[in-house]
């Protein structure tokens, strides 16, 4: 794995001449607005095949929205999305369903179907896309996928009976059920303890090694980003402000990037915090104290 201090020259914010066949997924001048709120602002980006791209950025900067555009769970207000050279943002839902079978998506909270067992959750995409002739083959597939995430034996459990980490791993098993070419991870380590978070990181690396999948992960966990990323993109106010490998991001000169990766509050926000006194008696509701 090449880990040089290298900026990604393939695509950057300044370069909006991204071509549809520059990567397996290409976003070309994508803008997304919710009312007057511009969440993605003219983003152009190409995701390289077989690599792990990590999108970082503060909460609410549009990371998940960007991820959802890659699989067209949300359609851009303007701009184009391509998958393997084919424009997909203008396809109707029927055609999109065929395209989406090439993707696996790990949702932030797992999004497991709580009315289905672990085995049924993993079988779900198989049932939808494959002609099942032998049920034992599907059971074998479920066992294999659960083995990959280290949870074989939990087939009959329901999501409510699983811990947060187990839910994420089952969701990952479901995401890889159809052997997708691309796996999209939305905050894969959020809400997990450091050991469980590292288990998920190792699983992501394992899938990249063993299945040669293209991965795009959205996170604000820098430890995870440094561990799994071939390339890191930082989003801020709907724009890409940094794009390169881990070392490039570590040594980036931009103050916003440095504050984010170091987990430091900005001077302005710190001043505001210091101005407000936690013990300020001017509270809107005063508590009655009985003598």
């Amino acid at each position: 794995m090449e880990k040089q201090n290298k900026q990604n020259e393939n695509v950057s914010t300044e370069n909006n001449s991204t071509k549809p066949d520059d990567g397996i997924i290409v976003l070309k001048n994508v803008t997304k607005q919710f009312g007057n709120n511009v969440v993605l602002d003219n983003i152009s980006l190409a995701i390289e095949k077989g690599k792990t791209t990590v999108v970082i950025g503060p909460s609410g900067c549009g990371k998940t929205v960007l991820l959802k555009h890659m699989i067209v769970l949300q359609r851009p207000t303007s701009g184009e999305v391509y998958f393997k050279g084919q424009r997909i943002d203008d396809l109707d839902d029927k055609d999109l369903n065929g395209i989406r079978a090439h993707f696996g998506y790990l949702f932030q909270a797992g999004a497991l179907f709580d009315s289905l067992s672990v085995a049924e959750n993993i079988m779900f995409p198989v049932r939808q896309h494959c002609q099942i002739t032998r049920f034992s083959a599907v059971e074998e597939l479920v066992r294999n996928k659960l083995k990959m995430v280290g949870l074989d034996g939990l087939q009959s459990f329901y999501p409510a009976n699983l811990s947060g980490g187990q839910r994420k791993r089952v969701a990952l098993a479901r995401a890889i059920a159809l052997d997708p070419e691309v796996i999209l991870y939305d905050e894969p380590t959020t809400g997990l303890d450091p050991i469980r978070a590292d288990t998920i990181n190792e699983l992501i690396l394992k899938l990249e090694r063993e299945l040669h999948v293209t991965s795009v992960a959205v996170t604000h966990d820098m430890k995870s980003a440094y561990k799994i990323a071939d390339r890191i993109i930082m989003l801020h106010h709907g724009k890409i402000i940094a794009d390169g490998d881990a070392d490039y991001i570590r040594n980036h000169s931009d103050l916003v990037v440095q504050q984010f990766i170091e987990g430091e509050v900005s001077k302005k926000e710190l001043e505001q915090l210091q101005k407000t006194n936690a013990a300020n008696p001017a509270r809107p509701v005063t508590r009655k104290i009985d003598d």
Partner: protein
Amino acid sequence: MRGMIGAALIKIGEGVSSAGQFGRFVWRSAVTSAESIARSETYPLIWAQMLLIGVRSVPVIMITGAFVGMTLAVQAYDQLAGMGLEEHLGVLINVSVVKELGPVLAAVMLAGRIGGALTAELGTMNVTEQIDAIESMGTDPVKYLVAPRVLACLLLTPALIIYADLLGIIGGWFVSVVQLHINARAYWSFSAYGVELWDVGCGVIKGFFFGGAIAVISCYKGFHCKEGARGVGQACTEAFVMSFIVILIIDFALVVVFKAIYSSFWPLRSMVG
């Protein structure tokens, strides 16, 4: 003043936009449900929904029907007895139950029981990204979630209305004959004379429309509910209120249509008879 006009225009725009969104959802649900009838892989999903929507609603529907019949008997007895027409009580009770009160009250009860459950279930799936997950796996959520529920409601609401009618008739009979000692033979013979198959059919056909409306409205509210527990709760309330109003509107529209059809064909029927 300008601000108020602007705000009013924005509200109207939002209203038109949500009406359009609802219209598209209804159309998509109708088309997908029609397509699903031909697909055998949808049958297990419809079957599961029929169990939840239909079978588990039977007790509450039967209780509703029984009390409608019994209450009507108690209320109407004094008026008819005052004119010496108490033996005609069966006609009044049974026509009211099978034509109007049975179907409408059963549908309102279903809007609360099924509509609330559907909206809460789909709303929770929406806020926990389960609907997005279905879509991300290349499955149409309307086909997987909405069509089985719509078809189960369409098929089972008329059946549940028949149960409500039946228990309404039994409830009316119980109070009239057992409690108020009206002659049973007279009660049933007047009822048989006054209640036509047409009356029962009208009630059952209404059930088909009520069921479709309850399912589509509840699914729409679930699919478009706002985030959080408050969002799901609000969606459930909106689904019930909207279903209730739509049931009343459909009922009125169908009564007008049925009356027009009945008036057109009544002379023909007497000629044949």
